[in-house]
């Protein structure tokens, strides 16, 4: 019989989940952690919950529906003008170690045109403008729905404004950064970077809980795409963006491949609190 904390009985399932997710405020953490430290049975139950959730995430990802509009790949974030070395600066500020990655530099590719996004942006901005001007809710919904429907059925040109509606607003002001949050499906997180870059760093930072957070730090146009195996970064060879990925507890190792280069494997246990940086420069 294993000695366990005398201050409390075995942990309840809900308490185990709180600890697993790093929800300190939801549980009497001190007592619970002391018990968990001493009790192999509770550690085993916690591990079983972790496994269950990883497997559920995998099942959900394999059963997902495609988005209805032929526009956004899932979890895609569009970025715009920003300082070219923001990622490197952030990495340096955090004090993370930087590891050079072996990636074969890819030829400078042409940017993929995204007329659907321009159209969606115009539609939404127009609808927003109208919403402010006239609270005609039904009209907004009808208009937005019609435009999205056009996009979904192959319409690729920017939609014309409706009668008596104000002209579409100009494109959005540039944003300096963007992010996408997701729960990795398994104990390995794969990060595929489309191209080796002119400069930039990919920083991995350990974090409690189950959710990963990927951020882009400075870019002219980059897509983050969440895929069943992890994350795909659609960049270009002349980019100098930085990327920061928070690696949650359930992930034991991160595999990073840049372009057609060799895969780098980073064990989570080797990532210090300040993180580890992978140089993306070719």
């Amino acid at each position, binding site marked *: 019989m294993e000695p366990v904390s005398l201050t409390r009985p075995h942990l309840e399932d*809900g308490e185990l989940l*709180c600890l697993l997710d790093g*929800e300190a405020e939801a549980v009497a953490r001190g007592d619970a952690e002391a018990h968990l430290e001493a009790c192999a049975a509770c550690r085993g139950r916690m591990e079983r919950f972790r496994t269950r959730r990883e497997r559920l995430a995998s099942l959900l990802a394999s059963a997902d529906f495609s988005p209805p509009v032929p526009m956004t790949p899932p979890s895609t974030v569009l970025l715009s003008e920003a300082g070219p070395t923001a990622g490197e600066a952030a990495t340096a500020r955090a004090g993370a170690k930087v590891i050079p990655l072996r990636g074969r530099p890819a030829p400078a590719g042409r940017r993929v045109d995204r007329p659907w996004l321009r159209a*969606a942006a115009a539609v*939404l901005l127009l*609808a927003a403008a109208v919403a402010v001007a006239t609270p005609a809710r039904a009209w907004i919904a009808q208009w937005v729905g019609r435009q999205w429907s056009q996009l979904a059925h192959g319409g690729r040109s920017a939609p014309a404004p409706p009668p008596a509606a104000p002209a579409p607003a100009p494109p*959005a002001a540039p944003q300096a950064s963007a992010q996408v949050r997701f*729960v990795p499906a398994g104990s390995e997180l794969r990060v595929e970077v489309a191209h080796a870059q002119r400069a930039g760093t990919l920083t991995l930072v350990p974090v409690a809980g189950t959710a990963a957070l990927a951020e882009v730090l400075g870019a002219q146009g980059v897509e983050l795409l969440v895929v069943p195996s992890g994350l795909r970064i659609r960049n270009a060879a002349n980019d100098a963006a930085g990327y920061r990925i928070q690696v949650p507890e359930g992930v034991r190792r991160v595999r990073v491949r840049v372009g057609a280069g060799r895969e780098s494997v980073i064990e989570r246990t080797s990532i210090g609190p300040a993180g580890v940086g992978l140089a993306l420069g070719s």
Partner: protein
Amino acid sequence: MDAAILFAQHHPSLFRYLSRLTGDPDVAEDAAQEAFVRLMERPPAPGETRAWLFRVGTNAAWMALRTRGRRRRLLEAAPLRAPLGDAPPAPDAHAETAEVRERVRAALDGLPERDRTILMMQQEGFRYREIAEAVGTTTQSVGTMIARALNKLAAELRLDDEEEDGWNPYR
């Protein structure tokens, strides 16, 4: 408010969450659209946009499902008014995906609405506080509800199975 940026940031995960929640991509699409329309009408406080969108989308999705359920019951009561023929299969519904989707759907449908909502929001990375606010419960209860849902799904989806060649979701 920059609607285009908000849309690009939140629509993919909102649609994924809602389609997992409801099992119906059409309902998910409509509910996501409803959430964005309301966002434009009455934007929430800065920093709360994502949780707000998911909360509104969730309510819209459940309402649509209930309406759809009522309509189906009416059609079943008056079969001559029901549309003829089966719905065409989705083009991407190849056998394995369809089978997994069916199993997952059946298991999720067996969960109470609130437990399903909590579990799917957690899968999208929300904190317990945000989940508790969305479903009207306490932060302390969220862990319990997630555990209860996982315990039930473990049996239905055989999440605890150990096999020599590893766990296989397609068996």
